[in-house]
């Protein structure tokens, strides 16, 4: 009783003092270099453009009006369909891969995960560049097609060497799938590994056809993996800049390219801001809504667990049962 004041105020101040001291550095850093710039982007979208390439005074909706000119919606629309198509393709291809990886003997699994990740130790830029080499008019695929064509003649008309492989939306989609596929395969595999495959046997036993079993039993079973794969591919895809820039043409620009173009060569900062704000909204809306719906702190084991697992194939291989430390009484 006599010690109550001591445990109360004084201790609490000391307690909070330590918390503030340890929280302050990263919190301050993130505030200055993340929160402030983000707010700045949102604010600048409502500023007029100055002629000298800077930002004018006062507030205006002019930028937003310009954005609704016909040119932009088509870019936004292309960004959306390319991203969704890349996501759908990645998951469509990723599902059978995850299935195959999870069915292989346990000791080989981490090797397979390693094989999936290995090419992606190479720089992102270089991987995109490699496709430029392949798809180039004088590149490997063209030359290969040329030879095939000269042997088989006109029967392969649609694969004629004159076909433009680079600088179109098809090339952008192809390279996007190439770069984002592993991010679909890994969460799908993590989910598939925990899937109880005896369910499939049960379904076959009850007379289901393979196709049906795959879509009706396996895919719903790895639902969580599908959801995370969607987020994993869709969000970076929406913000693509390098892929459309390097393998796309003028008719396959995405929002990312426009942001760059407005910000640097054009020096139209309010425009770039407005586009960024749009992209930010598109990217943060789905997870934001999910967060609002649950209002839960994401400090559960799931998050860091998955990050840890994603960082290493061996961890993924072991992800079947999560280890826990000794239970306290």
């Amino acid at each position: 009783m006599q010690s109550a004041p001591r445990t109360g105020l004084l201790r609490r101040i000391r307690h909070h003092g330590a918390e503030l001291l340890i929280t302050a550095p990263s919190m301050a850093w993130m505030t200055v270099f993340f929160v402030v710039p983000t707010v700045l982007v949102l604010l600048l979208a409502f500023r007029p453009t100055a002629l000298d390439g800077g930002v004018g005074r006062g507030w205006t909706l002019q930028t937003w009006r310009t954005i609704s000119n016909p040119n932009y919606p088509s870019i936004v629309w292309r960004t959306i369909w390319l991203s969704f198509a890349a996501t759908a393709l990645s998951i469509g291809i990723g599902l059978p891969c995850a299935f195959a990886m999870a069915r292989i003997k346990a000791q080989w699994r981490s090797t397979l995960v390693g094989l999936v990740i290995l090419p992606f130790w190479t720089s992102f830029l270089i991987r995109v560049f490699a496709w430029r080499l392949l798809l180039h008019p004088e590149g490997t695929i063209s030359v290969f097609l040329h030879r095939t064509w000269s042997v088989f003649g006109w029967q392969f008309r649609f694969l004629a060497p004159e076909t433009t492989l680079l600088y179109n939306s098809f090339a952008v989609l192809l390279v996007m799938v190439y770069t984002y596929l592993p991010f679909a395969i890994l969460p799908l595999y993590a989910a598939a590994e925990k899937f109880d495959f005896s369910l499939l046997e049960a379904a076959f036993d009850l007379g289901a056809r393979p196709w049906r079993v795959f879509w009706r039993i396996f895919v719903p079973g790895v639902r969580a993996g599908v959801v995370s794969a969607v987020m994993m591919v869709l969000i970076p895809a929406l913000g693509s800049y390098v892929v459309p820039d390097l393998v796309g043409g003028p008719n396959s620009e995405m929002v990312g390219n426009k942001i760059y173009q407005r910000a640097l060569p054009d020096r139209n900062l309010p425009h770039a801001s407005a586009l960024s704000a749009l992209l930010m909204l598109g990217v943060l809306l789905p997870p934001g809504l999910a967060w609002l719906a649950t209002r839960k702190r994401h400090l559960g084991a799931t998050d860091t667990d998955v990050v840890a697992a994603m960082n290493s194939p061996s961890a993924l291989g072991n992800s079947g049962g999560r280890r826990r430390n000794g239970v306290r009484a």
Partner: protein
Amino acid sequence: MKRLQRRSLATFWSVLFFFYVPILVLVVNSFNASKFGGAWKGFTFKWYEKLFQDRAIWQAMENTFAVAVGATLASVVLGTLAALAISRWKGRLQSAHYGLLYTHLVLPDILMGISLLLFFISVGMELSLFTVFLAHTTFCVSYVAMAVLGRLENFDGSLLEAASDLGATPWQTFWKVQFPLLLPGIVAGGLLAFTLSIDDFVITFFVNGAGSETLPVKIYGMIKRSRDLPKINALSTLMMCVTVLAVVASRMMQGRGMRPQKDASAARRPSSPAERREGQGGRVRGAAHHA
């Protein structure tokens, strides 16, 4: 069942083929005398020779390493502190703290690039290697914090109680027990930060200034101007060799080093841009999980 398995396995091998072919073509072409690499015109080392004569590339490499080392050191300190605070205290402050680090992981690079560019312009900062360092530190903090948090989540709190029970002051408890046990997570976070910093293109592209080109920015310029393309092949091949060697080396270190908890071996390897994205996905997945 067998049929399903055979078909899915066939898909998987095709996908691996799809993954490796572009890279193999790139490596092979770095030794190809032909400028465009469509056809084999003989074996040569001349692209490598040219590469080593290019002073601008060496300068870019120097810049890259300077930034990577600085950003790694800064982000390891900030990220570790952040992880400690988030795991130690619960409350609104730490929720916000975690939310900041988490959101930053989810956002596409281009948004970070543009917002930092606008920020630097607004506060009147000259774009330079220093702004690149600031930008890199910012995105690395999140990754380090998550790596250390992962380690902390498996941390047995009774070890800290045991230490203080045996007479350790809070300060001693941290340095003698908690820090040594967190070290693998911190090192993993640091390696992750280092590789991410070396590899980053989009953010650097927005915030670098005259003379502060990093290697990816330099390569991008070469690609864009369609100049010295075979040199890029050679450079890429070399970079891949270095990465693979680093991976093997860290694997070997890992084998020798102490590893008290198996589950913690998760984040012990230097990571690639691929893994970085995976990391993001992990967060997103968490969000989806709670949905």
